[in-house]
């Protein structure tokens, strides 16, 4: 019995430790590389951008691509390339904040539900069910209609709307993990529920949580870009990919699709990277 428990604990440990070197396949690795590049781009944006993203040059609207403007200029002569690079900041920061909120609220809730069971579990599950009934972007619009447009309202609302997915999956995994003999062994040794959760359950669930957070990042990014497109999220003239699509729509109808298409391409690349990375992690965790 003890040996079996020990082996189980070690297996669980190894799983947690093995995570950084996980075999993700080339798609997963490529996604990870893209994510790192995007993060570097956002962090060092002001250094990389060749021009001031907000400097207006009304004499040269819709300038074609040249050595000075790598991707041309928009309707007010701003450098599209620089705006795309600076735009990575709000476009990535928004989903990052949402996902962090999701994890900070969703994981403790899921662990509490799985650990206590009974009434606590029932209550938490009902609340999650009701939140599930709200499509994310609709809840965000409702909140924004009351608290005003902006990134802050959008982030909080989307965190509330997307958290139930993470919580439900984490709860299911935590329930399975809790039934493993090593947890019982630790309980018998007198460790507190909090300690067992923090020291053993969370590390063992971490690959799953990271994977889900990564997938969620992609979906949140789509929702946030949609909100910014509607004028309810990030506000112009801030450089943001969703805002750029929206701002470029008039130009698109006038025959200058560059701004919208490039900003759209950046969103697709980022969403692809995060969802594919998350999916590969989920697959190899199984």
């Amino acid at each position: 019995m003890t040996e079996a428990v020990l082996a189980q604990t070690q297996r669980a440990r190894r799983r947690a430790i093995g995570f950084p070197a996980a075999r993700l396949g080339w798609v997963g690795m490529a996604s990870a590389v893209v994510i790192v590049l995007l993060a570097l781009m956002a962090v060092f944006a002001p250094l990389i951008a060749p021009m001031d993203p907000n400097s207006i040059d009304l004499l040269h609207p819709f300038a074609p691509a040249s050595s000075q403007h790598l991707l041309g200029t928009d309707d007010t002569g701003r450098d599209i390339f620089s705006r795309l690079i600076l735009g990575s900041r709000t476009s990535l920061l928004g989903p990052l904040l949402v996902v962090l909120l999701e994890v900070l609220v969703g994981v403790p809730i899921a662990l509490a539900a799985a650990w206590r069971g009974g009434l606590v579990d029932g209550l938490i599950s009902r609340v999650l069910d009701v939140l599930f009934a709200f499509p994310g972007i609709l809840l965000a619009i409702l909140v924004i209609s009351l608290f005003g447009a902006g990134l802050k309202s959008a982030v909080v609302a989307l965190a509330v709307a997307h958290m139930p997915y993470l919580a439900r999956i984490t709860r299911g995994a935590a329930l399975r993990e809790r039934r493993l003999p090593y947890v019982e062994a630790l309980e018998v040794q007198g460790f507190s529920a909090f300690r067992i959760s923090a020291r053993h359950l969370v590390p063992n669930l971490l690959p799953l949580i990271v994977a889900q957070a990564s997938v969620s990042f992609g979906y949140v990014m789509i929702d946030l870009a949609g909100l910014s497109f509607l004028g309810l999220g990030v506000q112009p003239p801030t450089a943001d990919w969703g805002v750029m699509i929206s701002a470029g729509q008039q130009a698109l109808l006038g025959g200058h699709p560059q701004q919208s298409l490039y900003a759209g391409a950046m969103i697709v690349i980022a969403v692809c990277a995060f969802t594919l990375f998350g999916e590969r992690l989920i697959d190899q965790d199984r």
Partner: protein
Amino acid sequence: MARRLGALAGTLLATSFIVYGAVYLAPGSPLTAVTGGRPLPPATLHAISHEYGFDKPFIVRYWDWLTGAIHGDFGRSVVFRQDVSSLITPRIGTTAFLIAYAALLILLFGVALGLVSALHKGHPDTAILTVTSVGTAVPSIVAAIVLIWIFTLQLGWLPALGSGSGFAGQLRHLTMPAVALALSGIAYVARLTRAAANEELRREHVATARSRGIPERYVVQRHVLRNALVPITTAAGLTIAGLIAGTVVVENAFALNGLGSFLVQAVGQKDVPVVQAICLILVAAFIVVNTVVDLLYAVIDPRIGFGGGDDR
């Protein structure tokens, strides 16, 4: 069955409470939320206050609003000074048409692409898998921009803006919006159909059927598709329910005169009764579609009973 419908009623009640009660979480008094802080003469303020029943307790007001909503009465628009229902009714058609069109595209192309992918290994499978992997990551606004660029500006085939009139006009005007709305759903359903069909193809009953010389068409129809139908229905159903919220973005991208674009307009004008009404309608539709999908399982797979609780 009764349990499912009970849960449906409970969820509807809870969400309607959130939609209505959210106004009272907003900073400032509910009266300012309704008037949007516009400076109005005291007599008007008093009249509005009385009309919305702010002199009555919250729970009574909520109940009045809810019972009114069930009978199709959502109060009066602050901006248009008209009944909300009379403003909303003409716009429901466009939104419903758009959702139905996109749902049809998802069911047709999603399932077809997934089956082709599963049954034709090699190049077709790889191509479809690659396209659908990227496709799920394409937001509807990006799809909208690319479609307008190709089909309106380059080819000049389809109009970029407006809802059109008559069935043929609507079909023409709503084709690009429906494709933009359905695109990621088609990709998602195709991937799930492929996975579900592959799983069935690996099973012994399919190998047995093939070894008995049953024609491939029947093997696919009776053994693969029939068994893969439960996961496919789940994926398609949830995706179609998701379209309901997606219309808000797409209607704005194509300047359609539907509920979604009216919702965003009402948010901009701080027309709270309109926002509440449209949110309630869209959320209720979302919940009802989800429940219908749940009920469909039992029709497709008789082994699944109603109301069985699982702990996942």
